[in-house]
C-alpha cells in the first residue's frame, strides 16, 4: 500500500511540475506604432512632395 501511495504521489508531483512549466509566454512585441502611416510617398527629390500636397 505504501508503495502504491508513493507511486501516486510521485505521479501527482511530476505532473504538477510539468503543468507549472506551461506558463503563458510574454506578448509578442508589437511593431512600433509611432511610425505607422496611411500613405507613404516615394519621390525623387526635395520638392517632389508638392505634387500631391494639394491633395
Amino acid at each position: 500500500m505504501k508503495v502504491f501511495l508513493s507511486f501516486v504521489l510521485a505521479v501527482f508531483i511530476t505532473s504538477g511540475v510539468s503543468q507549472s512549466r506551461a506558463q503563458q509566454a510574454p506578448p509578442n512585441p508589437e511593431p512600433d506604432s509611432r511610425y505607422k502611416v496611411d500613405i507613404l510617398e516615394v519621390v525623387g527629390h526635395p520638392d517632389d512632395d508638392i505634387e500631391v500636397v494639394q491633395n
Partner: protein
Amino acid sequence: MIEQQHKRVAVIYTTRGNSGGNAAGQEQANALADVREMEARHSLASYGVSDAWFLHGSDTPGADVLHSLGQWGHGAALDEIVRLIRVTRPEVILTWMPNYVVGENHEDHQAAGVLATEAFDLAANPLAFPEQVEAPRERLGIGNYGEGLRLWQPKKIYYFSDTTHFDFLHGKGPECQTNDMSPSRKVPYSRVAAEAWNYYKTQNDFTDAQLKEFTEMPVRLIFGKSLVGGSATSDVFEGITSAPVAYTRARGYVPPAPGLELELGGPWAFYHAFWPAHNIEHLDLYSPEAQVAPGETLWVPLLIRNDTDAPKQVTLRSTLSSGWSQKPDATIYTVPAHDAYAIQLKITPPAAHKDTWQTLKWSAESGGQSVGSVTLRVDVAANGLPQ
C-alpha cells in the same frame, strides 16, 4: 484628403537634391543637398508631415530611368525602401509614374516609381532582404543579429506624372480639385501647396503666375493596383480597413515568345517587360513618345531580339519625316541565336518642324518575312533635361 480624413503620411526622398541650380545662394553639390534636406523638412512640417527619410541616390538630371537606377545602386536603394515600408506599414503608396513621357520626364522621378513598385511587391516576401525580418535573439541586448521588422503588404499603389499633356490621364485614377477649402485653415488647398513650396527657396525660380498655375492644377492620380478591390477612379482609401492583407505575388518576368522581334530599346524595352511583371500593364497608356529640340540629337535605341535557335539576318528600314536625318546608316544586322542586337540611332529633326509632333517609324524584315515595326511620336520642342 490627408487633412479631412486624418491620414498619417511619411515621405521617402530617393535623393537629397544635390544637383541643379541654386536660386537662393551659392551652395552646390553636397552643401546644396544639406540645404534642400532642411527645406524639405520645413516644408513638410508646414502641412503636418513629420516623418521623412532621404536615401543616398545622387540627383541625376536626365531622362533614362536605367541611368538613375545604375547611379543610385538599384539593389541598395530597393533594400532601403523595402525596409521603410516594413517600418511604416503604409496602406497606400503614392509615387511617380514609371513611364517615359513628354514633359519633365525626369529619370529620378521614374526611378522612384520603379523602386516603389518593386518594393510594394517585395515588402511582404520573407525572401526579400530576409535579414530585415529576422527576429532579434535578445531584443534588450546588444550585438543582435536581424532587424526585427515584420513583413508588410501595402494595399494600393497610385502614381502621378510630370507629363506636359494630360489627355491620357482622364479616367485613369482619382482627380482632386485644389480649389477645395481646407477645413482647418479656411484657405484653398492650392494655398497650402503654395505655402509649402515657399520653403524651397533654392528651387523657387518660378514667377508668381507660374506658381499659381502649378499649385492650382488638379491633382491627377493614376491607379496602379489594389489588393482590396475598388475602382480606378474611386477614393484612394475605398476598401481599405485596418486589417492586414496577405502577401500577393506579382506575375514576375515573362519571357517573350520564341521568334524574331523588333522593339524600342533602352527605357522603352525595360518598361515593356516591367509593367506586366508587376501587374500594371495598363500603364501602357499611350504610344511611345519623346522630345527633342530642333537641331539637337534624339537618341532612339532599337532592339532586335532573336529568340530562335539559329542566327538571323535582319534588314531595318526607317520612315522619317522630310528633313530628318539618321545615323548610323547600316540597315542589315546579323543577330545570333537567343541574343539581341541593340541599335543606337541618332536622329536629328529640322528646324522647320519646331513645335510640331512627328511620327517616326522603323520596320524590319528577315528572309522576306516581316519582323515587325515600331513607331515613336516626337515632340519637337526643347526639354530642360538631357535625354
